[in-house]
């Protein structure tokens, strides 16, 4: 009987999926969210 790979093993053997996840997670969690926070800042009012 042909053995099925464990899903985590399939993930670890899929370089391209790891590349995609590595890029996307960082850009969402750090970059995009951070830029949105900066863009949401109200302009400072002069005294």
């Amino acid at each position, binding site marked *: 009987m042909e*053995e099925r790979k*464990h899903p985590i093993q399939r993930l670890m053997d899929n370089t391209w999926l*790891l590349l995609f996840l590595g890029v996307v997670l960082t850009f969402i*969690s*750090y970059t995009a969210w951070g830029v949105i926070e900066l863009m949401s800042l109200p302009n400072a009012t002069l005294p």
Partner: protein
Amino acid sequence: MSTIAIAGTPQASEPPANVAGNHPAGAVRKCDTTGLPVCKTAERYVKLNAVMAVVFLLVGGVSALLLGLTRWPSVHLLPVDWFYRILTAHGLNMLIFWIIFMEVAILYFVGTTLLNSRLASKALAFTSFAMMLTGALLVNAMVFTGRADVMMTSYVPLRAHPGFYLGVILFAVGTLIGVINFFATVYIAKRDHTYEGSVPLVAFGAIAAAIIAVVTLLHGAIVMIPAFLWSLDLIGQPDAAWYRLVWWGLGHQSQQINVAAMVSVWYFLAHITTGAKPLNQAVCRGAFVLYILFINIASAHHLLVDPGVGATWKIWNTSYAMYLAVLASMIHGFTVPASVELAMRKKGFDKGLFGWLFAAPWRNPGFSAFFLSLVIFGFLGGITGVTLGTQQINIIAHNTLRIPGHFHTTVVGGTSLAFMGLCYYVVPLVFRREYAWRGLVRVQPYVFAAGITLMALAMSFAGSYGVPRRHWDIEFSGAPFSPGFDAAAHFMMGLVGVGAVVAFIGLLVFILLTVHAVFLGRSNEGRAMTAW
């Protein structure tokens, strides 16, 4: 039943591996020591990148000595303008050029030798190397001629000559091309079935490093291209807060490439020096996956005192998610020495709890460099890093010498020392030249480790007394006030200088011995390398 595969284990659904690899005729040789295949094209670029890595290490090392002697209060060597100039050169040459040239060499070695594949493209390898070298030389030319006194971070509104930004862009794009060449090699190796089962663990770690490099270099392009255009007066000044956010996506993440590459080197050196094998492939690979997914967001540490980003963003990126990457480092920190312990016990060194450790090959510089790197990175770097990444502590420690104290244990005591240990095998196996003065080689890792540990600890303690980082004169000579640092802080700054001198001696010994071996060393072609 689903299974977790072990490297080198053929899967039922896969055809058998092509043991001859996919090398064109005459383009491969068999290593006289390990029996592994060596792609001759890749070998040439491994050599070129490794040589340039050591050249830039020398530039960064001399800069380090000058900085150490300036921050040593009783010496205070450099004038103020040259202090910041040399600081800029030190950061870029050590953190970027030395390490990334070495990492590209590692990628080519891993992609071709461990995966038994030809290098995907000679043209890409040449383009990558030429762009990286041109970029690095251009950056150094700008810095040493005083046209880029902006330090490594080059925060706007500080503005350098356009050649500086162009050099960084050339280097980053060149590196990206090298990484693409590596991924293409991984692709053709899998396509041509040059290995069985999953890729070897060391190759998996290199893939993790390459993925992190892609994220890093994309951030570099996003931030450096606008800065370059601004330096040419083609666009307005980029927003300072935006610049800092995206720049750290380049600056900190480039150090995460180091972490993944360094851990791969640990596994490699543990195996080649003691015969150690990973205790559990799935756990070790899972730890690398945690790096890929979560380590990059640690860049947020640098913005913990920035007012522009909110607490939720800071806490998520520096705590909850990032701790998964810390978990990965802890896994590697335990599994690597445990694999050495198991290997040593199997050889019969099983007396008591630590008999295996005392019997370890401490005279082998590959082993001592790797093990000292592991201890310095894991204990000193890990503990200082996690505490500094906590918002409440960071607000106290930010911009003090505690920060350089941390990263000198990770990237210098950790990565650089591991890469030095790697060189003690790269030169005999790839350059096929033997090291001379082997007694001196055996001592070198200990001297360098002692110096860098003393310097980094002294930096950390001085920082705890409030001594700022990146500061030419903590006494504020001529100012109408006195900062009033504790006498212990001055003592610590003296130790920083002593540690820097000792570390530099260790570094210089490494460079001289390696350059001598590469150009004048006894050839070992046709026979196995002389065992350490």
